[in-house]
């Protein structure tokens, strides 16, 4: 059963259509990736799903219930890990967790037990009485994660959870997120880190200009839009037209990236080595989700 479902979900700010008719079904227990350039509408979509922002149009169901009628109930089973640090700087590390637990009405003893456990899990056990401003950026991010788990959420919503983390901390977070898999926790992950999305997500939705332009498992998206490999041809002004002409005549799927041309869906018998005179101007590499991202949302800055 879909744990979160949206129908024609739309959000309009004055003259900007931030989210445009989004229909989504997020399955219970999956890790659902939400990718898209800045301004694609990811944050607005998340704000609506987490009952913070009312939709202009459309509906949201959480566990089959209309979100309109069960704000509190829905928020009680969600953990939100925001991109911007909104830890409480007036309180200590431990008080941050205890106070947050109180918002969820978790009894004091239980809250204390969970806080201790979570601080240990995120390697913050030496920081109980530290003020927030004494923490490094990585520690704050880990504390945000710990805070997001204090209510043992069924649905965890993460906005760039590993942004600014060193590789050690990043793997710690990835490991924890994978572990939640076995606990059946649904995860919604907004990220710009394509490797993260590929590694962690069961399915990925790519958002562009308020719409979901594609949605599938990462490897399925890669093979659909890019193929298994990408060929990159470095071109100069003279050779350029000839190469493009040649690629067209061979019926190949390519994208003109200016000084480089990217060729997709090249099969083994379609070697491109004869296209360019110098071998170093031609390389091929495994396709990634980033290639899909560029194909679907363009290479230029959108903001």
């Amino acid at each position, binding site marked *: 059963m879909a744990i979160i479902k949206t129908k024609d979900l739309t959000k309009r700010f004055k003259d900007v259509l931030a989210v445009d008719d989004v229909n989504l079904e997020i399955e219970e227990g999956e890790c659902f990736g939400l990718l898209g350039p800045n301004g694609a509408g990811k944050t607005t979509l998340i704000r609506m799903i987490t009952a913070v922002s009312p939709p202009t149009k459309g509906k949201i169901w959480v566990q089959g219930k209309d979100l309109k009628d069960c*704000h509190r109930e829905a928020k*009680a089973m969600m953990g939100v890990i925001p991109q911007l*640090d909104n830890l*409480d700087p*007036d*309180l200590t590390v431990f008080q941050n967790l205890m106070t*947050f637990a*109180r*918002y969820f*009405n978790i009894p004091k003893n239980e809250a204390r037990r969970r806080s201790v456990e979570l601080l240990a899990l995120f390697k913050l056990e030496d920081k109980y009485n530290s003020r927030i401003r004494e923490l490094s950026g990585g520690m704050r991010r880990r504390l945000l994660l710990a805070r997001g788990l204090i209510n043992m959420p069924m649905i965890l919503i993460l906005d760039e959870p590993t942004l600014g983390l060193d590789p050690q901390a990043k793997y710690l977070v990835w490991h924890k997120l994978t572990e939640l898999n076995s606990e059946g926790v649904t995860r919604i992950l907004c990220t710009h880190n394509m490797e993260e999305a590929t590694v962690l997500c069961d399915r990925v939705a790519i958002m562009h200009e308020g719409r979901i332009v594609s949605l599938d498992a990462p490897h399925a998206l890669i093979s659909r839009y890019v193929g298994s490999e990408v060929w990159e041809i470095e071109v100069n002004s003279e050779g350029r037209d000839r190469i493009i002409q040649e690629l067209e005549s061979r019926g190949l799927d390519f994208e003109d990236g200016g000084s480089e041309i990217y060729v997709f869906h090249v099969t083994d018998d379609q070697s491109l080595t004869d296209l360019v005179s110098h071998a170093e101007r031609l390389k091929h590499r495994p396709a990634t989700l980033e290639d899909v991202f560029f194909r679907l949302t363009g290479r230029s800055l959108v903001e």
Partner: protein
Amino acid sequence: MKPFSWRCIRVWQRNRDVFFRLWHSEAPGFIVEPILILVAMGLGLGAYVGLVDGQRYIEFIAPGIIAAYAMFSASFECTYGSFVRMEYQKTYDAIIATPLSVEDIIAGEIFWGATRSLVTGTVILIIATAFQLVHSPWALLIPAVCFLEGIMFASIAILFTSIAPAIYSFNYYFTLFITPMFFFSGVFFPLSSFPQIVQALSWIIPLTPVVHLTRALVSGELHLGLLWTLGLIVVVTLVFFSLSLVTMRRRLAV
């Protein structure tokens, strides 16, 4: 308007915990300053002031100081304090992601602001009693009046906070609204010393009825007209309380 729930207590508790950590940095504002005013104005200036009914000047201003500083406490808490929590610390954003609603947060903030008024008013009342300026057991009701007054001024403050574009906006709030009230609501001199028109105007500023009420409770000279005064405070409180929930939802739940 959407109603608030009992969960607003969670925000109140959060603010209380912070207050217990940091109260020593707040104490000069709500304990030392009123004592200074009471002594400087009451004894210093008071030596030159003769009131019509022979009352000592310090006795005259004490209940006004209680009401005025209770007003300051709620006003600072729900302007600068709330704005910093909302805009700089993003505390509201964090809380909205939990089962609390915008209305719970704002109601919690208002009740906390009112609690600050209650604490300030009670502290000054105790000091005034120590100075032997309180003559009636009715004064025991003053903390309750301060709490109600606090809800009123916290609501007005939060309403202004909900439309404040930047923290500098509060300069206007204090210079054009709070400070004039401090001088024109009968704290330092009877309203009757003003021209008729100013007297009438001073009744539309909300500190005037509160001063009226605290003065009556301290002196014990009660009359039925005070119920109207109380009613006026309650109505103003209800109006601004409801308005602030609406405007804050408009600001936060976009």
